[in-house]
């Protein structure tokens, strides 16, 4: 899930501090990861790309279009909402952010889970449980644009756009336009610029 959305629920806002990757960097990382996925799986056969609802959806379709154009194979793309599988239901507001739509049967498929940021690993744990309710993939791999550390579960990504050391209190905003490191501002007056949850980068 995009970190921005998670904090939007609690009324907090994001203030960007530094641009870590620009749009070109994100695109080149996507190209590289797409080629790594093809190399690792020796082609695109049986591949299904599944974006985690919220931030992973655009990443999955961006990867799929590169993989499809390189291999001349149509790679199916799905989306997965993990709200009902989270382990913090009841501790904070948890509502679905989008639909779960997987266009093909997952039995025997090689699923590449795609998310924008890998942080504690709890979303990935929830996604693995959700996937197992939908079928039995032959293998599940994990692709993330940014790995920011601070793992709380034994989760390891297979494909990483950028390893980004962060403080726990910081926030990383990832979009096709770039990656911005910033902070979560707890209390925001309505109408102020921080409330829009768009990254603003200090000049």
């Amino acid at each position, binding site marked *: 899930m995009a970190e921005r959305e998670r904090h939007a*629920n609690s009324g907090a806002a994001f203030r960007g501090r530094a641009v870590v990757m620009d749009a070109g960097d994100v695109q080149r990382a996507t190209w590289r990861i797409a080629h790594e996925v093809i190399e690792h799986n020796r082609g695109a056969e049986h591949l299904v790309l599944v974006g985690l609802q919220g931030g992973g959806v655009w990443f999955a379709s961006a990867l799929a279009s590169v993989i499809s154009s390189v291999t001349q194979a149509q790679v199916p793309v799905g989306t997965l*909402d993990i*709200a*009902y*599988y989270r382990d913090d*239901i*009841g*501790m*904070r*507001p*948890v*509502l*679905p952010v989008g*639909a*779960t*739509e997987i266009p093909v049967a997952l039995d025997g498929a090689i699923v590449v889970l795609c998310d924008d940021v890998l942080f504690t690993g709890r979303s990935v744990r929830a996604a693995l*449980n*959700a996937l197992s*309710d*939908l*079928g039995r993939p032959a293998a599940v791999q994990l692709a993330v644009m940014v790995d920011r550390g601070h793992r709380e579960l034994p989760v390891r990504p297979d494909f990483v756009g950028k390893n980004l050391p962060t403080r726990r209190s910081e926030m990383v905003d990832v979009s096709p336009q770039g990656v911005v490191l910033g902070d979560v501002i707890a209390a925001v007056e309505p109408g102020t610029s921080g409330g829009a949850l768009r990254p603003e980068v200090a000049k």
Partner: protein
Amino acid sequence: MTPRHLLSVADLGALGIDEVLRLTDSFVEVGARPIPKVPALRGKTVVSLFFEDSTRTRLSFEAAARRLSADVMTFAGSSSSLNKGESLRDTVLTIEAMGVDAFVVRHSCGGVPAQVAGWLGAVGDASVVNAGDGAHEHPTQALLDCYTISRERERRFGAKAGRPQVLSGLQVAIIGDIRHSRVARSNVIAFAALGASVTLVAPPTLLPPSVQGWPAEVSHDVDGALAKCDVAYLLRLQNERMTEQFLPSVREYTALYGLTAERARLLGPSTLVMHPGPVRRGIEIAAEVVDSPSSVITTQVANGVAVRMAVLYLLLGSGAPVGA
């Protein structure tokens, strides 16, 4: 504010109803999976506390709770210690002491779920869902009816409505025993909140003593109402609640107010026929109309499970404000 109980559909408002409907979409998707179950309410306990007969509502709530991985306890008034003289209050507090997170309450007296919510509030934080109280309200029925109308119209005719007023501009005719119907009360509130124009069609004896303040019109012209409505919502004659003679005969009711096969020809091509069940074929609605393509009666039942999953999840799981 995060709601704790669902006692009346009026508590939700248009925004709250729309939020339940949107959440229901996600549970409809869950219901279509090979394993139609999510772990969202693991460890929660839901008790169905039914003091009145029910098939679909009880099974629907229990299926909903199980599909959310909650534990379900079943209580039937007829086989309980009520028969030994235990009061309702003591029964409720006894069950609460076993550690229950939600009570799904049906009772033949209006106001019992609110009363139960009051007793529970003094001892803990369990939620109460009104599953039908007397002739008062049946909020989850209203929610599943709103869901069925809006999504069926979208599916069949591609009708995309604005939000939150997803029933904006629709004409709904509610036909039958309005006087004894909790479904009619909840549905009038919900349909009107979502922008529909509601017409109540019934013999004068089967209207409530006063419909003043109801956001609905009253008519005794069945044919006229059927010809112009987008939704024909039929109600059962609730003989079990009739304390006096309201009708000369059931046959006369069928002839004057029933949706017979001949009357069904008055319906427009896009009109949906609905009924909260149990249906008594041949009385308020003809058998062939129940089974006709314009009938969405079984769709209502199917959507009921997903709507109740949404309600239980909002009350017990989400921690999210509703209708904010």
